[in-house]
């Protein structure tokens, strides 16, 4: 056996998906589900059009999302927490720029008991003043801790740098925000975006017909359709841009964030941009990782990505590097972006990246929970499963010339907005 020779390789021909089934209740509420029969647990995500882009004041969307479980007409926060804890369930909230969710993880057998209670909590939340005070007190102090983290500061600044101060995606948190929140702000946002609004339900795991029936019985209620801001939103002009330095003298490492507004998943150039980004910084073997981590040892990790919000997509490069090599790292990022524009990708690298991407798409369907996350992404972007079929076809036939052309159009170091927190 010659160990230097790789075993024969099978091309990835097609990918079998576990697809979501969508049921539309009589009220218009959409319920999406993927059954995984060999487990005993269910994940249910209830998703509202209640992300931070809808708020008029900093913190409001995140606070309503968090405090929705902290008291309702009938029950106190402690009673609610106990009810779910007693069943061994996990009830969490999450809030992004676009959406806000309440997520339940529990044993399938607990569903009939938990859902009516959850419905009651979500539809009669009353935001007790003491819970608001506790939240503000604790989080104002956590904010002080976060302010010491260069990566956190860079994240907090990034969207404003990218999109300008008044953009709905540009919310940034400052210490004074914790003094400005009023209970009325929360109640108004809740009434608008949760209480009288419609929502979507995502179910994965042991989603039996009984589970589906329970969800319909409990949650099939009339709500007002609240649309997300779906029109394309513009960012700052992609002009030549200098580095914005936020100095932290004691920093051992600097955080770097670079980015620019870019095309969305429906754009004809997107598959090529996806491949170009993967080559640049989208996986462990990427050029940024190979150069800046594996060759120079400047960092523990560096990556690039294309992030898709509703109506706005952006390209981002992100890393934390030894403070004394901050400038050198920026130079190398510029070099690697220029390489993509100036030199055709080799056949060998292209083949590797194509297969890596296909394998990674396949991995996205390991178990119903992952498969549902893929569906949720499609649903947010208004895409169907044919998105994956097209993407796979496009990637398989992608030419190096196309990648270069797309890099020239969409990847320009000079026009990236650049933030450094730490030292330069």
């Amino acid at each position, binding site marked *: 056996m010659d160990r230097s020779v790789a075993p024969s390789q099978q091309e990835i021909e097609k990918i079998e998906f576990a697809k979501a089934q969508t049921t539309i209740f009589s009220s218009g509420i959409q319920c999406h589900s993927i059954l995984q029969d060999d487990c005993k647990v269910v994940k249910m995500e209830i998703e509202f059009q209640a992300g931070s882009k809808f708020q008029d004041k900093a913190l409001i969307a995140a606070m309503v999302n968090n405090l929705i479980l902290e008291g309702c007409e009938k029950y106190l926060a402690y009673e609610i927490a106990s009810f779910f804890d*007693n069943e061994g369930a996990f009830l969490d909230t999450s809030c992004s720029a676009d959406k806000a969710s309440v997520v339940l993880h529990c044993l399938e057998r607990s569903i009939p008991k938990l859902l009516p209670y959850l419905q009651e909590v979500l539809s009669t939340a009353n935001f007790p003043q003491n819970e608001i005070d506790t939240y503000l007190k604790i989080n104002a102090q956590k904010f002080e801790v976060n302010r010491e983290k260069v990566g956190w500061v860079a994240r907090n600044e990034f969207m404003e740098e990218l999109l300008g101060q008044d953009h709905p995606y540009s919310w940034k948190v400052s210490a004074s925000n914790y003094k400005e929140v009023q209970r009325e702000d929360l109640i108004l946002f809740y009434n608008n975006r949760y209480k009288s609004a419609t929502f979507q339900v995502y179910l994965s795991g042991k989603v039996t017909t009984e589970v589906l029936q329970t969800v319909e019985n409990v949650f099939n209620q009339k709500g007002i359709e609240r649309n997300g801001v779906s029109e394309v939103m513009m960012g700052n002009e992609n002009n030549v841009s200098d580095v914005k330095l936020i100095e932290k003298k004691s920093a051992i490492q600097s955080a770097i964030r670079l980015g620019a507004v870019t095309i969305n998943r429906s754009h004809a150039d997107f598959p090529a941009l996806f491949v170009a980004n993967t080559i640049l910084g989208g996986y462990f073997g990427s050029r940024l990782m190979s150069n800046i981590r594996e060759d120079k040892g400047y960092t523990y990790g560096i990556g690039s990505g294309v992030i898709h919000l509703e109506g706005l997509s952006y390209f981002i490069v992100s890393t934390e590097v*030894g403070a004394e090599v901050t400038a050198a790292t920026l130079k190398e990022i510029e070099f690697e972006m220029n390489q993509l524009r100036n030199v055709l990708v080799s056949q060998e690298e292209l083949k590797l990246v194509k297969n890596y991407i296909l394998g990674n798409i396949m991995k996205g369907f390991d178990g119903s929970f992952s498969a549902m996350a893929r569906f949720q992404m499609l649903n947010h972007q208004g895409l169907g499963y044919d998105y994956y079929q097209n993407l796979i076809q496009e990637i398989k036939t992608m030419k190096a010339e196309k990648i270069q052309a797309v890099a020239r159009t969409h990847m320009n170091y000079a026009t990236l907005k650049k933030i450094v927190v730490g030292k330069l």
Partner: protein
Amino acid sequence: MVEFKEHQLKNGLRLIFNEDKTTPIVAFNLLYDVGSKDEDENKTGFAHLFEHLMFGGSINIPSFDGPLQTVGGENNAFTSTDMTNYYITLPKNNIETAFWLESDRMLSLAFSEKSLEVQRQVVIEEFAQRYLNQPYGDVYLLLRPLAYKKHPYRWATIGKEIKHIETATMEDVKAFFKRHYYPGNAILSISGNLTFEAVKELTEKWFGDIPSRKKELRKLPVEPLQKEERTLEVERDVPLNALYYAYHMPSKNDADYYAVDLLSDVLSRGDSSRFYERLLKKTDLFTEIDAFVTGDTETGLFIIAAKLSAGVTYEQAEAAIDEQLLEIIEKGVGDEELQKVKNKAESTFEFGKTSALNKAMGLAICALVKEPELFNYEFTLYDKVSAEDIQRVAKHVLRRENRSKLIYKAKKG
């Protein structure tokens, strides 16, 4: 119930296989029975540095990641006090590539100087990013040597100090490999839509001719019984005062481990837990408070970690925590409260069985700690714990003379 089959090669390698017909990928998990506890006290951080070097090319294959990515695979690894674990996911048609790559690096590494130089630098940046450049990042670098005086758990997996990483030599690297990387010190665990026969055949084909070595008996220094409370006070550039307690607790092979784990859950798992409800919500003393166990194979630590609200004194904070601990020692827990944390444990276990990677990794870790069956019955060990057990272990573990206390003060101005 996660079904699995086992096979052992003549050279000592253990194979565990779970057939999962529902997943499009295969999870290939190779665990080595070596962690930071196996390090020399003057060369700490080595197991973890070595994990990085495992990606720097093997004897017959110059690059590990490239060929794997070329067939649509992905991999990662972690090192802890007790183990070094490597895992791959890839399309099932290309499973043989995982065997090819992993068996070659078990056979021997390339031992390239360049790889050592670079990975040394990467690990130093990891040290900086995770432990030095984060507020409170060095807590466990301080707490471990306070709690342990002899046992190698006294240093963190990343190492005692950066100097140990800086001075690692190629000779050290080779000696470490020879001592810990061989078939009899490894467990291969696979989950995916394959047959046991096919997996067995591939294992024999690729790992069968790797020379066996006699498994060395581990002789770790025994930690002497702690007889009095230890206190360390430090000042750092952080916004809030913090307080940490560490108590010695039973090992994972002791039945009382499960009672102590549930004790930590009663105190701080979920928003209805005692610490959350009584200390975080009802008082203004803390901005964060947690109790948890380190989960080590050998005698680990039960830890309480708290951040104090601005203006709160250490006396006030300690009195409030001690009151809660005393209450559980004197009055124990109610049946309903105990059932609650058991239910949480049960659903956690069930969620841990929902992907091929979780199953492959879980079976391997259980095989290391005790036996792969543990993956299926571990919950029953929690379920057996009684309210009396909780009170008994609380009394035994939460003694002041069993405690190490870290006062982590915010520098003024």
